[in-house]
């Protein structure tokens, strides 16, 4: 809770830095706020005892609206690290003409992050709705933050229209759940789901809530917005959407479905079907893409499908697996986006052909992208492999067919993840534009690469926090 207040206040301060002609201070202020936030999360995590879902502060302090648990602390930690990397990445990547809005962009990102924190620590369905709104509304603006570019405007408009519509569906679902149980409180809902008959109204509400959440995560059949929005938005915002937003809404869905609704309310089969469909649609469509950002958009859809495996087997270990997976996925995605941004800045587009010959002209960038792609594909000795391994072993006992489908999908994904890798190392360069990098981009790349390998070799680096 203190974390949410702190980040809100720092967001306001960052927003105001442009008024007082201190626009240059926006970046260091944002980074400082995020680092202090990370420190607070560490402190929360130390205060926790064994239980994953026990609130750190007495729940009555915040009138049963929010319960900041170890689960929320870990999710917030992953999101904070991802935000720190993304904001460092943005230091030199915001075009000079948009530099005027720099403080606004950071302020909106911080506001969005507040919504993300609420989403992983809500205790009341109204807070879930508020969290989704606080997360989304800044994102609609961020998606269109390149005011003069048509693609960016289109992305913002599509995201806003569809997003507000699905938020309406989500709210309707919450209303139906309230109608069936008479309570918004998660504990009351948990009792309702575990004792006695579940009414049809509740089930309809559950499906509508699932639809609303699926839109935000990008699950099939609610994924159609994500390629357009991801490719139209500025790269920094896309990286933010693919990592922080996905992590937080997935955390919210995990809390609601695994912890509250529980297995016996009969939604696991639905989710297993959605998981399989999401993996196949994401991976098969990704193979057809020629633009790097669109490919990453479909890749993120596919990864949401893998993550659903953790939801159909809700035990304590699956929560840990989700956090490990999210950390691995975020590191690899941010690393890949960093390389893409360097290439795009120098060549003007994110087409995979533009990666041709990068292995010769800039081997550091090429190696970093190769490691990130290997992690996303799940090749051993990377974080992506170990997190997939954890996820699949957890799902194996209940849904072995789903795991087999997931493994087939991992094999498919190797095809498109290795497209840029092959382009970089084995294809001759088509142009003589030199791909330059800068310090902040290099720092992010090194952190991502070292993180991917370190977690891949020694996953306890992250799992230790969860024990």
């Amino acid at each position: 809770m203190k974390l949410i207040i702190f980040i809100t206040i720092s967001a306001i301060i960052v927003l105001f830095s442009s008024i007082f002609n201190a626009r240059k201070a926006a970046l260091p202020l944002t980074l400082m706020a995020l680092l202090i936030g990370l420190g607070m999360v560490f402190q929360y995590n130390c205060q926790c005892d064994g239980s994953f879902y026990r609130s750190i502060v007495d729940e009555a302090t915040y009138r049963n609206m929010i319960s900041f648990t170890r689960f929320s602390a870990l999710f917030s930690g992953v999101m904070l690290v991802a935000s720190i990397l993304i904001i460092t990445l943005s230091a030199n990547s915001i075009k000079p003409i948009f530099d005027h809005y720099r403080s606004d962009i950071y302020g909106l990102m911080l506001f969005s992050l507040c919504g993300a924190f609420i989403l992983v620590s809500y205790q009341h369905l109204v807070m879930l709705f508020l969290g989704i709104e606080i997360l989304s509304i800044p994102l609609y603006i961020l998606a269109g933050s390149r005011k003069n570019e048509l693609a960016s405007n289109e992305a913002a408009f599509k995201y806003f229209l569809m997003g507000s519509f699905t938020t309406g569906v989500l709210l309707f679902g919450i209303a139906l759940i309230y109608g069936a149980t008479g309570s918004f409180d998660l504990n009351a809902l948990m009792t309702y789901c575990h004792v006695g008959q579940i009414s049809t109204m509740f089930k309809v509400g559950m499906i509508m809530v699932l639809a609303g959440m699926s839109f935000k995560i990008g699950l099939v059949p609610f994924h159609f917005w994500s390629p357009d929005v991801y490719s139209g938005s500025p790269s920094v915002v896309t990286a933010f959407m693919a990592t922080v937003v996905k992590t937080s809404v997935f955390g919210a869905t995990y809390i609601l479905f695994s912890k509250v609704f529980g297995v016996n309310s009969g939604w696991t089969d639905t989710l297993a079907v959605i998981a399989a469909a999401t993996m196949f649609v994401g991976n098969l469509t990704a193979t057809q893409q020629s633009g790097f950002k669109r490919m990453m958009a479909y890749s993120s859809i596919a990864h949401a499908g893998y993550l659903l495996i953790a939801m159909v087997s809700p035990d304590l270990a699956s929560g840990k697996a989700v956090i490990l997976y999210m950390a691995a996925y975020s590191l690899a995605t941010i690393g890949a986006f960093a390389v893409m941004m360097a290439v795009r800045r120098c060549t003007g587009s994110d087409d995979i052909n533009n990666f041709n010959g990068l292995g010769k002209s800039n081997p550091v960038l090429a190696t970093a992208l190769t490691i990130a792609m290997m992690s996303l594909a799940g090749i051993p000795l990377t974080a992506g492999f170990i997190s997939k391994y954890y996820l699949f072993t957890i799902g194996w006992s209940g849904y072995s067919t789903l795991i087999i489908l997931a493994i087939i999908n991992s094999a498919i994904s190797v095809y498109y993840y290795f497209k840029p890798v092959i382009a970089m190392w084995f294809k001759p360069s088509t142009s003589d534009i030199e791909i330059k990098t800068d310090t902040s981009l290099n720092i992010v790349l090194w952190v991502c690469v070292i993180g991917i390998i370190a977690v891949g070799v020694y996953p306890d680096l992250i799992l230790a926090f969860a024990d």
Partner: protein
Amino acid sequence: MNTTSSYFPIVMQTLVAGGFVGLVLTLTHLLGPSRKNKTKDANFECGVESDGDARVRFSIKYFMTAILFVLFDVEVIFFYPYAVNFKELGGEGFLAVLMFVSFFLIGFFYVLKKGALEWDK
């Protein structure tokens, strides 16, 4: 009580309401006189001759002022319930409202400094 048949009156009412509207519209269409000419078919605009298109571009400043007005107007709406319960809410309520107002003031300050209300700039 809570069976399908208890909703029967609602179904009847819907049918009657819809049927009445449909019937009247059809009847006026069939029975009423219909004279069509250019003047008759023109859009009615308070008796004044219509001019140009409805989709004209107008300055964003109108929109900015209007949307900011709505924002601060809604703020005032929250004051009414507070004013009614002023005594019961006491010091804690006052602090809560003060916080609410200060958030709005921060926003107002931001808007002013960003120059959103400067008309001729």
